[in-house]
């Protein structure tokens, strides 16, 4: 039996250019792969199911090969990955909720997405009717002297997404946080089934609104690979312009919002107008503030005209001028730094174990960014740096964002200056044929993965989307331990995980 890591490493060149052949596994090999992920020989990128099989996407960290392993299952069960590799746990619980497949040997078999309210069970398999009611959820027991519980949510105090946080605290100090999500579950996976590729693109771009472009691009990569379509260079450059604008807008928002949760309101007052400038620039250039439906499979929906380009150049200029004084302000406020430095520390080994992407991983020493490490055009033509820090605290997550704002501005200079001429849409492909494809794009929050399988009519048989937050949310539980409850909003904001992206 070939080593799992060798199998995956061999897939280095086929990834993103066409249908990626899946490796059929025996049960023993499947368990071997889970063990290898736990040992760090391979990185677990995602875990999902289709009607009769489970699949995992893995990366071999040295060769940067990406491969998919599949295990057929005739008896509605499969060997648990989470039993050996805990980061798979919530993905696995979701598979049980949606497909009714049971992970053998799993420790935690509580439902995750299914709160009992759908009126049916296992919506992606043979759905069965069930009386809709919401039974109580069994939170994990916390035993100890002087402990009290603080339940928060799903409706929170601010204008944010819904989720439930159960704090067990001793005095002010959090002993354990348990998250319960799934409140925004919209059933996107089932809406995808049988949808046209175009409708799929719409849904993908509404998975997590702040990452519209990242999802649109990853989905486009996946369908293009499945159909053997190559978008023209200009389209790819335009996608990168959109992706960096999206990163800019979100990072500016976050930098302000984190400081706001440290009660320093001047930062958001300065950051949010810059973010507003970016949003208006996007609207002027691409016809939508979030650039919704601007990326379409095969290319982009509309070209960047001259005035749109000038608008974006002006935005880059204004943000660059406005941003540095803000950084200086942050760096010179001892009262603010007292809240952010040392707070919510994420250990590097946990970040690596969970393959935490984005600013969360990079603030804890996980030196990984798809734009450099599994590059896609046009990033292979740009010069940029990937900032990494070791401290892993709120402050480090702010600094990664600050540095990424600077890098995005630098990239936008190159992208706007070097935009190649030509078409913005690929010529239609060879026609409909069954195919599968994988897309991986670095969003502002981390790596977004999309896997799609098309049928002979060119419709979606199955589409799986894995938000970066799947591997970030569980780490927030670890980070808050031994911090005081009052610092939770600060830690949470510095993570800024997506609810909708993981609830689907």
């Amino acid at each position, binding site marked *: 039996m070939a080593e799992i890591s060798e199998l995956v490493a061999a897939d280095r060149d086929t990834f993103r250019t066409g249908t990626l052949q899946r490796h059929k596994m025996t049960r023993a090999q499947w368990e071997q792969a889970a063990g290898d992920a736990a040992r760090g020989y391979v990185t677990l990128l995602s875990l999902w199911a289709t009607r009769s099989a489970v699949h995992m996407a893995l990366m071999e960290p040295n060769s940067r090969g990406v491969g998919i392993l599949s295990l057929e299952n005739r008896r509605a069960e499969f060997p648990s990955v989470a039993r050996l590799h805990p980061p798979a746990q919530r993905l696995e619980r979701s598979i049980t909720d949606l497909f009714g497949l049971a992970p053998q040997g799993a420790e935690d078999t509580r439902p995750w997405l299914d*709160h009992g*309210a*759908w*009126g*049916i069970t296992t*919506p992606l398999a043979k*759905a069965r009717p069930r009386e*809709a009611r*919401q039974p109580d959820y069994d939170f994990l027991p916390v035993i100890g002297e002087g402990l009290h519980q603080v339940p928060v949510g*799903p*409706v929170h*105090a*601010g*204008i*944010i*997404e*819904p989720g439930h946080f159960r704090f067990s605290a001793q005095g002010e100090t959090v002993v354990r946080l348990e998250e319960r999500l*799934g*409140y*925004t*579950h*919209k*059933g*996107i996976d*089932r*809406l995808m089934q049988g949808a046209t590729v175009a*409708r799929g693109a*719409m*849904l993908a771009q*509404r*998975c*997590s*609104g*702040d990452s*519209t472009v990242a999802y649109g691009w990853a989905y486009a990569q996946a369908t293009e690979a499945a159909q053997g379509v190559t978008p023209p260079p200009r389209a790819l450059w335009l996608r990168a312009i959109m992706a960096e604008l999206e990163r800019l807008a979100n990072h500016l*928002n976050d930098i302000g919002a984190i400081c706001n949760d440290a009660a320093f309101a*001047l930062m*958001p*007052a*300065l950051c*949010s*107008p810059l*973010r*507003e400038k970016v*949003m208006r620039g996007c609207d002027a250039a691409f016809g939508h*503030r*979030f650039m*919704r439906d601007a990326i379409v499979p095969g290319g982009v929906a509309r070209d960047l005209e001259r005035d749109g380009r000038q608008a974006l150049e002006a935005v880059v200029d204004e943000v660059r001028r406005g941003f540095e*004084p803000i950084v200086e*302000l942050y760096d*010179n*406020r001892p009262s603010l730094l007292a809240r952010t430095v040392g707070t919510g520390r994420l250990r590097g080994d946990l970040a690596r174990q969970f393959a935490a992407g984005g600013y969360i991983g990079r603030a804890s020493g996980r030196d990984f960014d798809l734009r450099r490490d599994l590059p896609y055009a046009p990033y292979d033509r740009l010069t940029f740096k990937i900032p990494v820090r070791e401290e892993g605290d709120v402050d480090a997550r702010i600094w990664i964002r600050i540095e990424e704002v600077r890098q995005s501005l630098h990239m936008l200079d190159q992208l706007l200056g070097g935009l190649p001429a030509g078409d913005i849409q690929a010529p239609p492909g060879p026609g409909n044929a069954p195919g599968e494809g994988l897309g991986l794009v670095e969003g502002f929050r981390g790596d977004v993965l999309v896997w799609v399988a098309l049928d002979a009519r060119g419709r979606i048989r199955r589409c799986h989307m894995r938000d970066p937050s799947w591997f970030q949310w569980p780490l927030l539980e670890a980070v808050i331990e031994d911090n005081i409850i009052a610092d939770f909003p600060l830690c949470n904001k510095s993570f800024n995980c*997506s*609810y*909708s992206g993981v*609830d689907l």
Partner: protein
Amino acid sequence: MKTMLLKALTGKPLTEAAPAQSGLDELGMTLGLQARRRLGRSLAIRQVDAGSCNACELEIQATGNPVYDLDRFGLHFVASPRHADVLLVTGPVTRNMEVALRRTYDAMANPKWVVAAGDCAIDGGCFAGSYAVLDGCAAVLPVDVTIPGCPPKPAEILRALVALMQRADKTS
């Protein structure tokens, strides 16, 4: 920081005031007058995300930034539904959020109004027909005002709150 504060004191405000361009100032006037008559000087809004993709939230948040500055109209967001006059709902209303949404509404004192913001909240948007959603806010609560868009822009959200005030005035 000193230079920054000085600049803030001497510089032009960021807040947009030009009524001809954005209509914001004009909106502020109508809203201010009517809100005063009905609710004293302010209108308190409780926002609930009933399964949105989060873009609607981002635009609602943006209404509070210095460019739109919703507070100058006497509008403000509150944490407790008990303090709220308006329930601002986003998302297609997932079945998993139905109970929480109802409870939030029930906790509000009368008179109260419901605003459905975004295509999802109006009729489920592109998620309509899913087993997991109720195809919009009206399935659960009496909706007074709808704000179309995916997501609606911050200025459109402000504009809709004025429409709500006018309606509240007529029905009194």
